[in-house]
């Protein structure tokens, strides 16, 4: 793997560990919840609170560590929902063709014409915003990307000799799609999933920045940026550190994704 | 015209180096038709590239390639490549830029840019409606037409040496033969030296006066074509010849 891909793997691996071990790593685990101590409000970074404290006196470092749990949970659930749907519809459209292909592709056209962020916002606006709802909303906007990706890969693989040999040998459509074609699409899919884990975190942060994500007091990166912004530039630490928290995570997934792409020799299209 | 002496080409890939051409000697005189024949991986294409100064960045060459007495590894190819020495590429469809018209592509490489000259040139490579072909984009041409355009590109500056790297291998036998006939005519009429790189012994017989048989980077046998095809002295040449499918005789080869 390339050097930057390796760096990405280290970042992602480290952050996943941080998220899992947050209750033990955080200096003030209770600050991840609805803790309030007004005397501690807006302390700049110091020896007790390495990244400072927020408006109700909670330790920012502790909240940042716990916020990664929220972000990774969102990324995992969205991918677990969106990828199977996208893969199935993409395979079906690309391999079976006919009216099914038309219906599936035209549907994705419609979804892709609306910014995913706006689609997710619209759904969240209609229901009461919460982390669970955010997961559903983002997945709803996300699956067509996988449909498109898998569709394109399927179209380029379906006329390969081994696919036709499998058909001649008597393999049915399900076996051909999932047994012969899908394993050869795993490079692009895995690449996109890794990159997307970062972009889902990015979108989740955007949603909660607008107040449509995880409900307080759940620690969340976007919410923390939003809470800090009005106090800029004097109280800079909440915004700066939570922003950096987002950037590092997304960057990690991006570098790792590029590394995986190189590993599989896939192209830039995913 | 062309004299190659002690040519070595090494390719570095992930820390390992492979010697793909090992001490190769070869020469082509003016008006001569010479073939370099070998299986895939024998190093014949790398030889062609080394002669033309078109080796990939991972490869490097040592030895001597002399063109008209000038050592190209010292003097470089400036002023020679593309004008006095040219190359016919393997796959006509991928060698032509898909988004420019044939005319623009020929003009970009030709010293003389008169349209009437380009048209005459296309006619000389058996293109009957040169005006249409000049106006066309490569994807609007058949493989055979595109191959003729490549030939025209190789001839446009009236070179003294043409290196033809497996011309038209992907196309039908007919266009292959036509390409070679046009090149042979050029050698006969204009005294152009032609080096044909191929894996096909039949084409060697049809085209070349002299043949070099290459295997794993080395020349294993050389000599007049007729003699080598009739009485090969090297074991490898014999087995190659024995493997060629025949129109007549024993089926097992």
């Amino acid at each position, binding site marked *: 793997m390339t050097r930057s891909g390796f760096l990405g793997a280290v970042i992602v691996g480290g952050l996943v560990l941080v998220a899992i071990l947050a209750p033990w790593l955080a200096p003030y685990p209770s600050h991840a919840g609805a803790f309030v101590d007004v005397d501690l409000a807006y302390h700049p970074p110091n020896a007790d609170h390495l990244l400072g404290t927020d408006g109700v006196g909670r330790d920012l470092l502790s909240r940042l560590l716990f916020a990664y749990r929220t972000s990774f949970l969102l990324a995992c659930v969205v991918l677990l929902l969106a990828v199977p749907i996208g893969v199935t519809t993409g395979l079906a459209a690309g391999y079976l063709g006919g009216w099914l292909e038309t219906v599936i592709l035209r549907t994705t056209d419609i979804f892709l014409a609306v910014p995913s962020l706006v689609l997710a916002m619209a759904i969240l606006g209609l229901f009461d915003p919460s982390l669970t709802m955010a997961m559903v909303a983002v997945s709803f906007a996300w699956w067509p990307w996988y449909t498109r990706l898998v569709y394109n890969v399927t179209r380029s693989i379906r006329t390969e000799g081994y696919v036709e040999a499998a058909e001649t040998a008597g393999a049915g459509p399900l076996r051909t799609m999932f047994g012969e074609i899908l394993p050869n699409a795993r490079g692009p899919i895995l690449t996109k999933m890794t990159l997307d884990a970062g972009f889902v975190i990015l979108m989740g942060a*955007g949603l909660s920045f607008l107040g449509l994500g995880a409900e307080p007091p759940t620690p969340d990166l976007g919410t923390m940026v939003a809470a800090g912004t009005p106090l800029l530039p004097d109280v800079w630490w909440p915004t700066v550190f939570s922003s950096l928290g987002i950037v590092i995570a997304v960057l990690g997934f991006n570098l790792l994704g590029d590394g995986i792409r190189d590993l599989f020799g896939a192209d830039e299209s995913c | 015209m062309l004299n190659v002496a002690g040519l070595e080409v090494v390719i570095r890939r992930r820390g390992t180096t492979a010697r793909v051409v090992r001490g190769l000697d070869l020469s082509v005189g003016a008006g001569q038709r010479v073939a370099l024949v070998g299986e895939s991986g024998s190093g014949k294409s790398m030889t062609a590239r080394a002669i033309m100064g078109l080796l990939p960045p991972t490869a490097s060459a040592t030895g001597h390639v002399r063109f008209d007495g000038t050592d190209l590894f010292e003097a470089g190819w400036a002023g020679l490549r593309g004008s006095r020495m040219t190359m016919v590429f393997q796959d006509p469809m991928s060698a032509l830029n898909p988004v420019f018209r044939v005319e623009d592509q020929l003009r970009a490489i030709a010293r003389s840019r008169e349209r009437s000259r380009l048209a005459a040139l296309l006619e000389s490579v058996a293109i009957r409606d040169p005006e249409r072909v000049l106006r066309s984009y490569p994807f609007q041409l058949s493989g055979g037409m595109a191959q003729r355009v490549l030939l025209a590109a190789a001839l446009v500056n009236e070179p003294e040496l043409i290196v033809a790297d497996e011309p038209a291998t992907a196309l039908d036998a007919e266009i292959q033969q036509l390409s070679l006939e046009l090149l042979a005519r050029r050698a006969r009429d204009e005294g152009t030296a032609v080096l044909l790189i191929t894996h096909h012994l039949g084409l060697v017989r049809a085209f070349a006066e002299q043949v070099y048989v290459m295997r794993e980077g080395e020349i294993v046998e050389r000599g007049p074509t007729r003699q080598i095809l009739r009485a090969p002295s090297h074991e490898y040449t014999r087995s190659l010849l024995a493997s060629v499918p025949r129109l007549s005789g024993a089926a097992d080869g």
Partner: protein
Amino acid sequence: MINRLVRRVIGGVFVVAGVSVLIFVLARVVPGDPARLALGPAASPEQVEALRERLGLDEPVTVQYARYARQALTGDFGISLYTGRAVSADIRNTFPATLELVLFAMVFVGGCGVLFGVASGMRRNTWLDHGLRLLSVIAVTTPTFVWAVAFMLVFGFWLELFPIAGRLSEWLLPPERVTGLYVTDALLAGQWRHAADALHHLVLPAVALSLPALGQTARIMRASMVDVAARPYIEFARAYAVPEGRVAFQYALRPASIPVLTILGLELVALMGNAFLVEKVFAWPGLARYGVDTILYKDLNGMMATVLVMTLLFVAVNAVVDAVTVFVDPRIRYRRDS
């Protein structure tokens, strides 16, 4: 050629219609009772009933959609619960601001993105390439709202180089409306100071908005240049001593730009999504900020209209991109419809 045009127009109409159905279903069907949703739990049953009647919610959904579509075609999107005005009037007031922002950002994306990508691809594995790639990856992975906030802090508060809110300084009156784009209108009216001021306001939000798409464009442009550089036709050009500059800027750039063009439409969509964040941060009085507010206020009419107008913009820009692609890639121009 004509066939392609017709197919594209039909495709565009289909997409707009599809989005309208999608968003209508989301807004009117999924939530159960949109009237209750809009008025909140504190409203009395009579108030809810009154609103239901006003919105025509008692009729079958298909009838509702037919009426909505008919009215939308005449430019009537109903009344905004958020502003209390006609949604169409709100859109007229806010859309030009967003259009100006998005167009300006797209200029950055197209210009700088392509330039950086080409520079990177041509000077592969030099410090320039490494530097530009690092910048691109940071541009892509940093949230737009973080860019917006950072720019505001650095260039607005600390360096005081740029204004941080609105489209025009308070002491200036907006130029007479022709296009609705302040810079253009001010130039048309010969108000140079107004134009400069509007441009001054535009820079920070437009650059913040453009960065993710810019980074993505640079990356794809680079990959495409690298891909094209390995093609036999580039080797062919070299073998025939075509000058290097001409090889790069003519032989390679044109085919290499085709993949960038094909994803430009999708980048525009992402960019419009990010406009929702940027306009919020810079208090930009545009359609995207209106969209955020209508969503937060559960104003269904406003929300649906916002999405539809943005889809129309997407379809229009895509048509332009398509025309450019056809110009660049003759294979599309002459391909027979099969």
